[in-house]
């Protein structure tokens, strides 16, 4: 009488020993390799599109850097920064001149400006005749710095 455990052991150790034939090996391997190649080829477009996306994103990042880096490098240091002087703020004297002439113009027009300049020449002791060649336009341009 064979026990349950012995039956189990007999089945376990009585496993069939089989050999595959060369014909079977050839058929299986050829078909399996063909299936593998087919599967790899069908995947390629997806891989290419993923690659294209990657190339595009990397190109975009490179373009941004290519523009940003030269701009940052070209920016002068604070000590080298060029101070653009407002012609109106060129000097306090000019600024005052321009301010007083502007106020005079608002008060009485071009005649008031003429009067003020005449008064200034008188107070500074300059003869009006000596400024014969100086026109109103030249005075204004001097005041505005234009």
């Amino acid at each position, binding site marked *: 009488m*064979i026990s349950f455990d012995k039956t189990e052991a007999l089945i376990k150790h009585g*496993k*069939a020993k089989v*050999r*595959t034939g060369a014909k079977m090996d050839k058929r*299986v391997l050829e*078909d*399996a*390799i063909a299936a*593998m190649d087919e599967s790899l080829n069908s995947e390629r477009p997806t891989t290419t599109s993923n690659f294209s996306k990657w190339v595009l994103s990397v190109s975009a990042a490179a373009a941004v850097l290519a523009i940003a880096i030269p701009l940052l490098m070209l920016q002068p240091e604070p000590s080298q920064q060029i101070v653009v002087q407002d012609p109106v703020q060129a000097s306090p004297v000019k600024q005052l001149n321009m301010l007083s002439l502007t106020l005079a113009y608002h008060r009485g027009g071009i005649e008031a400006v003429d009067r003020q300049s005449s008064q200034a020449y008188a107070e500074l002791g300059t003869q009006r005749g000596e400024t014969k060649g100086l026109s109103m336009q030249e005075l204004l341009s001097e005041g505005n710095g234009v």
Partner: protein
Amino acid sequence: MKINENILVWQFNRGSRDALQRIYEKYKEDLLGLAITLLRDRSLAEDVVHDVFVAFARRVGKFRLSGTLRGYLSTCVANAARDRNRLRSNRDCGLDAVADRENAGEGPIALAVDQEESQRLIERLGRLPYQQREIVVLHLHQDMRFREIAEALDLSINTVQSRYRYGLEKLRSIMNTVTI
């Protein structure tokens, strides 16, 4: 062992033909033995192993190994063999059944199995209902645990264990009858 398998699978996923060939060489006889034990027909068993390897090759680049490669391939063979067995059962109800049986003879198994003892065992296992035979063979020949078998065959572990017990009891009674 497991590391070698993982390397093989990694190479296979990279499209290595050599890795595919090595996997086939490593498991072909084990899987053919399983298929023959389940189906008792070498020609059908070869077709099953062929189909399993072709389907496996199609998974190149996507294959993820969770357990062992042997367990995975054994499960594939068991599932494919069950489908073949179902088809064969349906066909055996038809008019061609008698002619097929006459043509089949003893040839397929006799050619496949070297040892007389193994051949006898296959014949005894063949007397079991397919569902019991499948579980007995996966557990005792392919070293799969009941839980693995339950997952692979989509059955509850209790069903697997009870089928195994019934199957083994039946085999024991067959063996005792023969011995007496």
